[in-house]
């Protein structure tokens, strides 16, 4: 009896397997990319440092000691040495992840929201509105980004908020340009035309038909900006325009340790290595995301 059933199920036409959804296939491609997974792991560790740094750090990152200044890497009690005020480097590097990631990622997030909004309006409205918005964007785009960031935060004055504002202004034009170009492409598709013909208003069309199709590419582009933003934000702190002492932040630490490069060169170079590792990881993560979301391959 059972054999009959088996043979009949085998001979029966196999029902078509339901094709996996777009996001499932993106996830599948992403998890099979060893480089991207490695980068994601490093980013997760850094995020853990940022969230729970104070509990992970072996010592108090603010506790200074005149006797223990500029200890080399490997000193007992100071695995990564001590800085110019005798504070434990390892703890400061771990706790420093919070501010460094915060000032690096926040501008990209803000610029992602604002830039997408501006690009959507320009791309969907088209015509004169588009021309006006995009010409203004072009003006800001005409400044090299480092120059614009330093010019803005230099005039606004030193401080975390000012450096966040200036970096956001730097990234808005870049994201808005991408958002405008993808929105313009989607706007001319037949399904948008059909929605308009069936009486949907602009808001509904943008929300239902446009947004879902443009957010992906804009998001991938925005993730590629995080590394640049991290380097720039820490660079502003390095110049003395961002985070103020004694807060642990990698760029600022690099600045205050600069005078010590003839005494403890490798301790002085450590904070920059953290910025480097973070930037590499975000770049590789973004590359992995881009190829995972690429439908063509």
């Amino acid at each position: 009896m059972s054999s009959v059933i088996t043979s009949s199920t085998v001979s029966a036409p196999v029902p078509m397997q339901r094709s996996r959804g777009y996001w499932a296939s993106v996830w599948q491609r992403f998890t099979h990319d060893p480089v991207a997974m490695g980068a994601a792991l490093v980013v997760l560790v850094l995020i853990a440092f940022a969230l729970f740094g104070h509990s992970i750090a072996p010592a108090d990152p603010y506790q200074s000691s005149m006797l223990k200044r500029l200890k080399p890497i490997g000193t007992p009690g100071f695995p990564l040495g001590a800085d110019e005020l005798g504070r434990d480097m390892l703890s400061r590097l771990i706790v420093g992840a919070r501010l460094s990631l915060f000032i690096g990622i926040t501008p990209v997030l803000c610029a992602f929201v604002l830039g997408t909004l501006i690009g959507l309006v320009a791309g969907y409205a088209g015509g004169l509105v588009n021309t006006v918005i995009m010409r203004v964007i072009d003006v800001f785009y005409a400044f090299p980004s480092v120059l614009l960031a330093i010019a803005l935060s230099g005039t606004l004055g030193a401080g975390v908020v000012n450096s966040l504002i200036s970096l956001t202004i730097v990234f808005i034009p870049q994201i808005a340009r991408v958002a405008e170009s993808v929105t313009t492409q989607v706007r001319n598709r037949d399904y948008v035309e059909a929605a308009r013909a069936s009486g949907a208003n602009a808001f509904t069309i943008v929300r239902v038909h446009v947004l879902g199709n443009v957010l992906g590419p804009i998001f991938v582009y925005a993730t590629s900006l995080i590394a640049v933003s991290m380097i720039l934000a820490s660079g502003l702190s390095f110049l003395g325009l961002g985070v103020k002492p004694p807060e642990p932040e990698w760029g600022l630490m690099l600045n205050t340790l600069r005078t010590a490069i003839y005494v403890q060169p490798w301790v002085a170079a450590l904070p920059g290595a953290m910025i480097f590792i973070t930037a590499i990881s975000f770049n590789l993560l973004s590359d992995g995301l881009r190829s995972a979301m690429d439908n063509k391959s």
Partner: protein
Amino acid sequence: MLLYLLRRMLYALPIMFGVALVCFALIHIAPGDPLVSILPPDASADLQAQLRELYGFNRSLPEQFAMWVWRALHGDLGVSIASNRAVAGEVFTAVGNTLRLALVATVIGFMLGCLFGFVAGYFRGSWIDRAASLVSVLGVSVPHYWLGMVMVIVFSSQLMWLPATGAGPGGSDHWIWNWEHLQYLLLPAITMSVIPMGIVARTVRALVADILDQEFIVGLRAKGLTHLGVFRHTVKNAAPTALAVMGLQLGYLLGGSILIETVFSWPGTGFLLNSAIFQRDLPLLQGTILVLALFFVVLNLLVDVLQTLLDPRIARA
């Protein structure tokens, strides 16, 4: 073609106007009275009014803007509050120094970038490709100010091969192309070249991979063309875009050199900007940014024109 170039040049004018407007606005978004840094704390109201008159701060904003642009067009960018010297003179000396650094850096970056990019694109998928791609990811991810510090640590403080800071015995205005001066240029230039190297390598790799996929290459190969012949065709097709990227990178380096110049105390625009910011010398800040930004716009224009001349298809598109 001529029409296209003319249109492209006309299009740059409103951008330049906008750039000037942003630079002008900088002084007015700055918190506090721009006169505060030059006035003695016990300055009389009379003196205050006099200086306000002198710098033109008592007029309406559009009037101030018009005056500022008019003067800038005549090469007068105002007077530095800190040094009391003409901003234009200071900026041009500094631009000369930065340009020298940026040019050398761009040339190094372009050559290395092309090499890595070409090899990676030609041997796509092989380990050479992966190694070259890794180098370009490292190039775009490295915080260049940190790389500068590491260079100083390795080549100045440990090996003692090259000087750590400054622009040589001639100081900021007397540069001579000899080893005595050149040794000061090497470390900052190599540090700076890493950014264009990464970006040029990425671009060239994509270009070469794209070109090699095209049918005419298959055709050429089928015709029996040697590797060298195919190589020549690839270079010819990749050159316009690669050169354009290099031109833009030169512009970015000019504007983005501030961090590297600070590390190496190189007396260029970045160094000037840095001191302008910390002395709150707003005319100097404004003038430097204006000159650098206009330079970038003009450079963009030149790159576009050159690219169109090299590849006439662009004008027809």
